Each structure stands twice: as structure tokens, then as C-alpha cells.
């Protein structure tokens, strides 16, 4: 092959390559653009999700209240002394109505009056009862009290932020007038919504709170942690440090990996059929919820614990073994303490998963309407995600706000848990 021939061959190839370049670089740009668009989409969705929830839920942390001049008139209340028994029957509703009539003397007519009375939450009498029970000397006296307004009033007041007319779905012209009047005089205000954090569930949005669900979640997680962490760590130790390589351990491995991908609702079916129907454990109880979530989070904990054990270099085991330690001593005295941070991280992540889980708990009856804060692991209870599910189904507009607020609480718990897992990993991570 001659030299000129060779360079001819090169140059024709060169030309062909040059011809295609523009098209290829265009494709490159498009491909890269698609990548950027995907990332942007992901980030956008995160932003959208959070702004949507926060904008919907932020209002729930403040609740509209009405300041009323309440006279604890024994005649209206129908009691002459303050004790638990008589307070149960006392007519606090009458006291509130009295006070509303005094504030708006111009209102007459039955339907107008009913309208007026509906401004105050139907839970307000209980607030007064608790006040009087705590301060018996108030009987017969008069004081200024802030009482929760009805959810329709609350919704209307909050909607005034968005438009001048406000959302008038369930608020009449007349009531809107009263509200404006009270707002102007400062007798109607948004105050911190303590009920949201101290109450259990309620049919009335202004009385509904997340305390019962939070405690339920806490108890359920406690059961889950107490069961799944030791079992998971023990299983990981066996599989990583002892297990011979045979069919049985292969079967266990396949099972663990597969369970990690089984839909959570199937665990709920297991809980229903075995724990509730077969062993007759109580329905709706954190104990059963915890058992189900334990089975669900075990694979996660086992897998991460094994990874932590794997990360401990064999030289440590050999060194301890060389000192004459038994296998068990090697594991419990040397390997386990070194692997513990990794295991804890895995456990926290598993718990975060369990905290957000809903579907399997529906199966075992944790969807009950729970007003009282559960006192133990066998009391009927619900959990935060299920409470969110229940509220999301409620028609009242004020519940949308509360659902979003409950989501915010749930998400902040999850963020704290995940952040602490990351922190723990960073802090205790050891490089070998």
C-alpha cells in the first residue's frame, strides 16, 4: 500500500466522519437535555409536593377563636356546687348561648339565633366545664374566655386571606356580617391550635387532634423496635458469621430478599388471618400492628445489619480468634460493637418505613375512630398515617387543612429520623 493511497483512504473516512458530526452532536444535546429534564422533573415534584402540603396545612396550626364574656351563672348551669357529678350534667351550652345573645342583642327569631349559636364550636361547653372544674371559685363569676369557633367560621376567616369575599360555601350573609364585626373589634382571632396536639380524633374538625394517633404510632413503633431489632440483628449474625453455605441458608437468603419486595398489604392479610383470627389477639391494638410491622421491617433490618457486619474487616476476627476467643466471644465482644452504628442506621431507616406504613394496619382494624389516647399496647388505637387516611376521606373543608397539618407532622418525624440516620452514619462511620 502506497503512502498516497493510505492518506486518500484516511481523508475519505475523515470526510464521512465530518458529515455526520452535526447530527451526532445534536443528538448528544437532546440526550443530555432529557437527562436534565428528568432531574428537574424530580426536583420539581418534590418542591410541588411540599409546597402543596404546606400551603394547605399551615393554617391548621392556628384556629379561630371567639372571645366571649362568660358568666358561670348557677341558675343557667342548673348546679349549686362544683363537683364532678354535677358538672357532667351542667348546662354549659346555655351559658354560651346567653353570652352570645348578650353580645348580639339585635338577633331575634329562632333560625337567626340558631345561626348565631352555631358560631361557637360544639366542643366549647367541654372547655368551660374543664375550666370550672379546675377553678371552682369561678362559679357565679364572670370572665373573658377564648372559645374555639366552629369549623365553618374558621374556614371562612381563613379564606378571607385569599379573597375579600372569602369562601361562602357554608356561611350565610348574616353570619359573615357578625364575623366581620367581631374581627374588627378583635373579639375573633386566630390563636395557636393547641387542641390539634392535645385531642384525639373528633367528628368536629375544630376539636380533632392527632394526640391519640401519635401515641398509637409511638406504641406501635415501640413494639416493632423491641421485636425487630434483636431478631434482625440475631438473624444477621447467624447468616453472616455462622451459617454454612448450603441449601437451607440459600433458602433463607432468597426468602429475605423476596420478603423485602412483598407488598405491605400482604403482611396485613397475614396479621388478620394469623394474629387476629388464629391467635385471637385484640383487633386495632398496637401490639398486633407492631407484630405485623415487625415482619415487614425485618428484611430491611437483616439486610442492613448484614452489610454492617460485612464491613468489619476479617483481620479483627482473626486477631480475636488468635487470642483464643470463642466464635461467640469474637462476635459479641469485637465484631458486634464495631458493626453497631451501621445496624442502628438500618434500624432507624426501618422504623421510618414502619412509621409511614398504612395499608397493613387497615387490615388489622387500626382504622377505628379513636377519641381516647391509648394507654397500652392492647388498647384500641390508630396511627398517624391511618388518621391521615381517615381525615382525607372526610368531607369538611376544615379537615383538608388538618390532614395536611397531620402530614406535616408525620413528614417532620420522618425527616428527623432519616436525618439522624445520615448523621449517625457520618459520625460513627469508620474507614478501615
Amino acid at each position, binding site marked *: *500500500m502506497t503512502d498516497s493511497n493510505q492518506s486518500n*483512504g*484516511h481523508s475519505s*473516512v*475523515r470526510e*464521512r*466522519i*465530518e*458529515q455526520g458530526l452535526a447530527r451526532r452532536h445534536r443528538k448528544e444535546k437532546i440526550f443530555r437535555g432529557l437527562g436534565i429534564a428528568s432531574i428537574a422533573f424530580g426536583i420539581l415534584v418534590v418542591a410541588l409536593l411540599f409546597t402543596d402540603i404546606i400551603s394547605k396545612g399551615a393554617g391548621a396550626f392556628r384556629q379561630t377563636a371567639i372571645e366571649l364574656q362568660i358568666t358561670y351563672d348557677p341558675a343557667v348551669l342548673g348546679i349549686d356546687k362544683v363537683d364532678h357529678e354535677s358538672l357532667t350534667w351542667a348546662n354549659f351550652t346555655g351559658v354560651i348561648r346567653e353570652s352570645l345573645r348578650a353580645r348580639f342583642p339585635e338577633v331575634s327569631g329562632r333560625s337567626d339565633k340558631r345561626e348565631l349559636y352555631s358560631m361557637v364550636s360544639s366542643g366549647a361547653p367541654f372547655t368551660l366545664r374543664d375550666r370550672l372544674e379546675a377553678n371552682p371559685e369561678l362559679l357565679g363569676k364572670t370572665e373573658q374566655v377564648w372559645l374555639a369557633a366552629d369549623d365553618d367560621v374558621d374556614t371562612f376567616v381563613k379564606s378571607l386571606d385569599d379573597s375579600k369575599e372569602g369562601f361562602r360555601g357554608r356561611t350565610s350573609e348574616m353570619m359573615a356580617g357578625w364575623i366581620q364585626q367581631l374581627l374588627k373589634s378583635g373579639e375573633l382571632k386566630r390563636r395557636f391550635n393547641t387542641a390539634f396536639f392535645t385531642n384525639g380524633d373528633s367528628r368536629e374538625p375544630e376539636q380533632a387532634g392527632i394526640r391519640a394517633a401519635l401515641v398509637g404510632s409511638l406504641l406501635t413503633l415501640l413494639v416493632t423496635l423491641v421485636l425487630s431489632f434483636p431478631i434482625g440483628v440475631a438473624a444477621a449474625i447467624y447468616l453472616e458469621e455462622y451459617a454454612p453455605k448450603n441449601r437451607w441458608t440459600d433458602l433463607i437468603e432468597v426468602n429475605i430478599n423476596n420478603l423485602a419486595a412483598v407488598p405491605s398489604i400482604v403482611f396485613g392479610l397475614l396479621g388478620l388471618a394469623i394474629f387476629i383470627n388464629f391467635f385471637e389477639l385484640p383487633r386495632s391494638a398496637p401490639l398486633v400492628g407492631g407484630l405485623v410491622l415487625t415482619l415487614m421491617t425485618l428484611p430491611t433490618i437483616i439486610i442492613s445489619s448484614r452489610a454492617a457486619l460485612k464491613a468489619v474487616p476479617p483481620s479483627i476476627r482473626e486477631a480475636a480468634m488468635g487470642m483464643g476467643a470463642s466464635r461467640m466471644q469474637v462476635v459479641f465482644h469485637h465484631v458486634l460493637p464495631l458493626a453497631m452504628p451501621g445496624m442502628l442506621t438500618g434500624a432507624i431507616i426501618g422504623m421510618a418505613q414502619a412509621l409511614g406504613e398504612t395499608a397493613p394496619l387497615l387490615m388489622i382494624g387500626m382504622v377505628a375512630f379513636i377519641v381516647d389516647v391509648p394507654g397500652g399496647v392492647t388498647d384500641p388505637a390508630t396511627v398517624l398515617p391511618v388518621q391521615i387516611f381517615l381525615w382525607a376521606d372526610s368531607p369538611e373543608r376544615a379537615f383538608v387543612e388538618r390532614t395536611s397539618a397531620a402530614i406535616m407532622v408525620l413528614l417532620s418525624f420522618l425527616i428527623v429520623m432519616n436525618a439522624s440516620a445520615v448523621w449517625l452514619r457520618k459520625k460513627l462511620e469508620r474507614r478501615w
Partner: protein
Amino acid sequence: MNTMTLDTAGHAAPAQPQTVERETVDTQTVVKETVGQPLCDNAKLSMRNVNVFYGEAQAIHDVSLDIGRNEVVAMIGPSGCGKSTFLRCLNRMNDTIEGCRVDGDLTLDGEAIYGPKVDVVPLRARVGMVFQKPNPFPKTIYENVAYGPKIHGIASRRAELDEIVEDSLRRAGLWNEVKDRLDKPGTGLSGGQQQRLCIARAIAVSPEVILMDEPCSALDPIATARIEELIDELREKYTIAIVTHSMQQAARVSQRTAYFHLGHLVEVNDTETVFTNPQHALTEAYITGRFG
């Protein structure tokens, strides 16, 4: 600044008895100028005052070197001397490493390699590369060789592509071994065959220069001998720059040899001169096996 003796440098042929007194070479010497003949008249690639940085660290210090047409230039030197880094500058493979910066004048046939408007795609088609570890794609043997022509649109018809594949495999000396199993995965070949497949893949796009980064380091001696023969044959058509760890290999395949030390180009000369009559003390110390 220091006088690190070869005793502390460590592995100077343990077979040597301890009593032999050896000449001390300061391996940390700062090399000011390249000795020998780094430049040539018929340059295909020419590099002037090249500096390469990885972040803050400088890997190549002021290297100037020409690589002539149809010659094989071997680059030798101890590990970490920068010879591979330098080689990867020639077709801008260093671009893929985050934080790597190259300055100096590098030209291919007088055209700048690192110009702002230079497109690396046709550049790399002109300056092909063969890597340390054979890296055939997980595709068939045919697809491996046809990959380059396909992406560059070199063949317009299937027959043309077949021809290129056959021609490339023949030149790589692999055709007779694989012609009956072109549709089998390239990863199923032996190490030496895989490396020749990678060479065939590289020459399928008709490059002008082939860069080889220790192409035989993962191969057994017989496979190495085949590749070395091949390099000698390829010299007819291509300009070749080869980085090697083995001085014997450099002596066998190259016309000129460049010795790198700690990012500096110490000496460039005819291969024979370098190995028989090194002009720099460091070169001499290295080729006589006193460090490296």
C-alpha cells in the same frame, strides 16, 4: 534536598549481595531540561511545554516531545511518572477525569488538539487508543469491530461494513482465529485475543495514530509476543505511541524511547542509544534496574 539512596528506595534486586557498594542516584532530582532529541522533522504529533494538573497537583512538568510519522515511540519510566497521563493527553481522554487540566501546545498535523473549537469526536477517531486491560464490549466479535464504523457512519452499506471488519481483524492478526465465530461474544476470547480484538476495533475507524497504554501488562508472554509482532506490522500504516512497563518491550518494538521521571521527560533518543548509552544518570539508573 535529600540523598535518598537506593537502599532506602528498597527493591534494588534483592539478589545482589549487601556488600556491593552502589553508586548513589538522587531520584528526587529536579530535571531542568530533556536530554537527547525530543524533536524531529517529520512530526505527526508535536507537543510543546505541556503541563498537566489534577486539581492542585501537577502530574506533568513542561514536557516537549515530537512523535514522527510511522514510527513507534515508547514511553518508559517508573510507576507514577506520568507517562500514561501524558499519553491520554494526546487524544484528550483526560477530559473524562474531573479536575484534570492540560496546558501547552499540542498539535496533530499542525492542528491544535486542545483548541477551544476542537471537537473530540473526530479527534479520537484520528487518534485511537488501546488500553491496559483488554476491554471488549459485551457484544459479538463482529459488533465490537463494527462499533466504530457504525457510530461514525463510515460504512454506508452492509457489505462495506463487512469488508472493514474483515480487513481490521486481518490486520490485527485475528481473522483466522475468529472468522467462524464472529457472532460469538467478544468477552469469550482469551486475554491476548481480546487485546487484539481491541486493536482491530481501534483500527476499524482508520486512525492515523494509535496510542497504547501498557497493552500487554495483563497478558502472558506468548500473547505479548503476538502483540509485539503486530505493533511492528502496524507501524507501516500508523504512528504509534506506546507506554510500557517493560524495558525489553520498549527495546523490541520502538524506534525512539522517551524516559519519564516524576512528571518530567528526562531523556529521548533512539531506542538503541537509550538502552546502550543513556545520557542521563537517572535513565541509566532506571534501565540498569536500580529502581523502578
